[in-house]
């Protein structure tokens, strides 16, 4: 399965890209599996996807958690805590 990844703010800058497509094994997965796969890339992924960094995940434009399910074609956004208003 493939998902579209979007990065925002400091993550976009530090990861050096705003968007990529990622192949995940199997036909379904959870957000946690996606995060694990990204972490295996090493820094800066490990830094911003560490358990002590408060990154946020949205699946198809809805805030999601590590146990949220993913399916082929989903749009997954990963970003730092929001600072609008």
């Amino acid at each position, binding site marked *: 399965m493939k998902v579209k990844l*979007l990065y*925002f*703010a*400091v993550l976009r800058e530090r990861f050096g890209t705003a968007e990529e497509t990622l192949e995940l094994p199997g036909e379904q997965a959870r957000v946690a599996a996606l995060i694990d796969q990204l972490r295996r890339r090493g820094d800066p992924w490990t830094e911003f996807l560490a358990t002590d960094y*408060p990154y946020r995940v*949205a699946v198809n*434009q*809805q*805030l999601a958690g590590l146990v949220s399910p993913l399916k082929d074609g989903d*749009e997954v*956004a990963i*970003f*730092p*805590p*929001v*600072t*609008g*208003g």
Partner: protein
Amino acid sequence: MKIQVQEQDFDVGGELAALAAGAPDAGGIASFLGLVRETSDGSAVAGMTLEHYPAMTRKALEDIVAQAAARWMLRDVVVIHRVGALQPGDRIVLVAVASAHRGEAFAACEFIMDMLKTQAPFWKKERTPAGERWVEARASDDAAARRWR
């Protein structure tokens, strides 16, 4: 209900007048106007850029307003949030709530602001004399949002 995310400035007096005209039995409008500060964490701010997640922003704001409308008796709501390049003193956000009951208008307006601050996908990058920096989220905003659970 009016929810807008836009680069251009907005007219606060005009927005409140339109809200009032459309809700003649409301009796009152509670609102919050957020502005770009001249200093932030002790540094002068020369300007800032507001980034957002276009496909999600409007949906997130609509969801927050829907939650408010389910909790309180509201007549109408306006949310306008700017993105792009902003200068010190510029308006960033307007949240205005018309209700027949003053207390409900205040509560809903503060709820929408607290949720917007912690759930709507906006990120501020400030320009200071020491360079650019991403604004850090505040624990006080998380605490304010948790009060409503």
